[in-house]
């Protein structure tokens, strides 16, 4: 069981760490770093599904007959690039929040919002 499933379990452990960071930390930059860890965990699960015993990278050559499945690679390759684009969008929002509230902490921003609501 351990020898045949540890690849999946490491993905689950990384996913747990990422999920914990996203939920527990109120700092928005730290949340995005946690989201990246979560994302890589999902990528690892996908890639491990395509691996086949004794296989090689899916680049056809007469010297090889067994190849890993190319489809998970394609899906994850594009997901990584889309991931950096969405991270950049999140970071741009963080920069704007910092300009508006003077903080990158979501709790502090919410308190500032509540104070403003009481004043008006």
């Amino acid at each position, binding site marked *: 069981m351990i020898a*045949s499933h540890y*690849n*999946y379990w*490491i993905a*689950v*452990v*990384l*996913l747990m*760490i990422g*999920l*914990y960071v996203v*939920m*527990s*930390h*109120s*700092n928005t*930059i730290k949340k995005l770093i*946690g989201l*990246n*860890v979560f994302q*890589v965990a999902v*990528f*690892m699960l996908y*890639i491990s*599904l*395509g*691996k*086949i*015993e004794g*296989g*090689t990278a*899916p*680049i*056809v050559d007469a010297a090889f007959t067994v190849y*890993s*499945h*190319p*489809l*998970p*690679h394609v899906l*994850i*390759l*594009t997901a*990584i*690039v*889309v*991931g*950096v*684009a969405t991270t*950049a*969008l999140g*970071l*741009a929002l*963080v*920069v704007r929040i*910092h*300009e508006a509230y003077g*903080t*990158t*902490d979501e709790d502090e921003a919410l308190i500032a919002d509540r104070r403003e609501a009481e004043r008006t």
Partner: protein
Amino acid sequence: MNGFVWIDIVLFTILAATAVGLARTRQLFAAAMLSGLFSLTSACIFVLQDAVDVAFTEAAVGAGMTTVLFLGTLALTRSREKVTPPRRSIPAALIAIFTGGVLIYASTDMPPFAAADTPVQQHPLTQRFLDDSMTEIGVPNVVTSVLASYRGYDTLGETVVVFTAAIAVLMLLGRGRPATSAEPKPREALPQPIQHDQRVLRVVSKLMLPFILLFALYVQFHGDYGPGGGFQAGVIFASGLILYALVFGLDAARAAVSPAALRRMVPLGVLIYAGVGFATLLLGGAFLDYNVLDAHDPAHGQHLGILLVELGVGITVTAAMLMLFYSFAARGVGR
């Protein structure tokens, strides 16, 4: 137990330790650097699992691009976070442990890792991709033929997502000038030209720059035969220019590649990609059916279509990544 298992164990240990480290540290600068290390280690694991194209992308994007964007944000904001109170950390830990427990319980139902009789390997598409792609498309790198031809619609969608994200960041951060002019004293921003005493850094990066850009072009045009393609090449090309901006200052980089040119290049790549689709429609085929591009030799048409489509992806990704960097960096200069 073969040698790969030991490499696996070492890499997984580094990966888990890095993840724990970046979760625990309150220095966001350190967390950003650790997330770069995390990406690089996971890229090594992807190589072990035969996903060379993915590893390539993860190394260029995760360790290069994402880290630079985090550092650019930290230069504009604060790099220390406050202590996480137990009222946040305890429920989060409980939910994470519960989710992990459920997933590990579910994973016992999964087939053994790397088995040949899993549903993934037994699916008819596997044989179609691996056996028929050489005759249908004639490109040795199956990842490229699936990416650009079999699943060409999908990749067009992903390219549009990158385009949309670049536009959204441009809307949020503008061309670098903050909306309010009554900002406090100018802050130390990321791409100040490095002082002259850093001569080694300047000379070495200037020597490396042509090789990085040439390598990006190789990755772009050799993607049919080896690992590579438009996504990877775009990120590598952009990282080369970002290195130039970091060492020689933002103004020097803007003089080399102007923001106005980038704003045209981002949609240009998407238009090339979609244009190939419309060309195939006009030639009587289906959308993105490259066979019709060459009336006599369908495989040649496939080659041509994949080349053009990857070129479109490369242009959009290069311009989008560089534009993202410019937006964050210029925001700091304007303050």
